């Protein structure tokens, strides 16, 4: 590390933030772009499992809430890609790389949604897992990203409440509805446990070292379990992990997640990866003419 890079590292590690036009070490810039781009990709891909259910929402209120939630996610991807673009990588290039499989998006968005139970579980638990990661970005050393995270976290707060409302309503409904919730939870638990990534010590995690995020992977997972397992259990739902328990020292024990599955999925081999990327590719191509018509020099 050069002296200038060391000075930068010391600066960010003591809480310093930088702006777009400040000098950034090459490694920092590259890792930052990759991280933020993956976040943007995830918001954009996260839309696809949920939007099918916009059309199937069983009441007008749920229809509005779910449409607004998905709209927020598209809005988040807009905010995030703008940040990446200001760092030097244009949005269209990000979309090229997403569609070609060159860049990645979070594991949970590679899985199918099968029932209205999934809609509730995703909004309640997947969004909860995401918000924990997102809160750890509020103090990101790269200030433009930290600033959009504030807006993102604020908007996500209703997503979780909406999810919880959907779940509670079903849990108070019929046996069939309760079964829908349990069945969805059983399917989503594995991906949820993998969501925060393998437990690399935070000192070895470049994202933490550069203070892009302020939390290690295991810390995030523990926070998720601590916040949400009690919420799950209190409804009479079960978690499909016989080893899951909270020790006396406050640490949650659980069956080791399948890290091979995680790697397999995020490298583009999830059950729905190909189909969803194809949808993105097809709609983008179909409407390339619109971008040309609109983004051409204003009349």
């Amino acid at each position, binding site marked *: 590390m050069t002296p200038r890079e060391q000075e930068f590292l010391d600066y960010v590690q003591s809480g310093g933030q930088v702006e777009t036009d400040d000098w950034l070490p090459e490694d920092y810039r590259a890792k930052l772009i990759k991280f933020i781009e993956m976040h943007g990709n995830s918001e954009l891909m996260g839309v696809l499992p949920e939007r099918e259910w916009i059309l199937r929402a069983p009441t007008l209120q749920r229809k509005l809430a779910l449409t607004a939630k998905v709209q927020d996610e598209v809005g988040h991807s807009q*905010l995030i890609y703008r940040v990446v673009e200001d760092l030097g990588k244009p949005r269209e290039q990000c979309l090229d790389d997403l569609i070609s499989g060159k860049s990645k998006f979070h594991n949970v968005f590679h899985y199918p949604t099968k029932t209205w139970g999934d809609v509730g579980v995703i909004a309640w638990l997947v969004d909860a897992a995401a918000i924990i990661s997102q809160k750890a970005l509020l103090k990101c050393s790269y200030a433009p990203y930290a600033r959009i995270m504030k807006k993102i976290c604020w908007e996500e707060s209703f997503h979780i409440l909406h999810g919880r409302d959907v779940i509670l309503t079903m849990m108070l409904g019929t046996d069939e509805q309760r079964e829908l919730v349990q069945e969805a939870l059983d399917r989503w638990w594995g991906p949820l446990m993998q969501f925060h990534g393998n437990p690399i010590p935070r000192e070895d995690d470049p994202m933490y070292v550069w203070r892009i995020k302020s939390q290690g992977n295991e810390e995030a997972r523990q926070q998720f379990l601590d916040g949400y397992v009690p919420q799950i259990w209190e409804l009479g739902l079960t978690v499909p992990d016989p080893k899951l328990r909270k020790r006396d020292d406050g640490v949650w024990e659980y069956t080791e997640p399948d890290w091979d599955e995680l790697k397999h999925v995020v490298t583009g081999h999830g059950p729905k990866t190909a189909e969803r990327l194809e949808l993105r590719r097809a709609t983008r191509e179909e409407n390339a003419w619109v971008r040309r018509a609109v983004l051409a*020099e204003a009349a």
Partner: protein
Amino acid sequence: MIYEVFRQERKGQAFAHAGSVEAPNEEFAEAYAREQYGRRGESTALWVVPREAVHEIDDFADELQKNYHRVDGYPLKEKLGKARERAEAARAR
């Protein structure tokens, strides 16, 4: 074109930079800014400005200790202490 968006959260508050939108012209930029920064009624007003109209200045020269026009240029504690002592001594005589 990139347009910067500034939002006022409540009447009386300053407009703060909120983010940016990509749009072909002012009309689209206004529509998009309205949506991204106001669809929840979270802003009472927005300013939408083409990025090239915003000029940043971030270098300021203050080489010669210009504390004459700052509060920290007026450490009065010692002087005040002495002035009070003098006044008390004058009253005692």
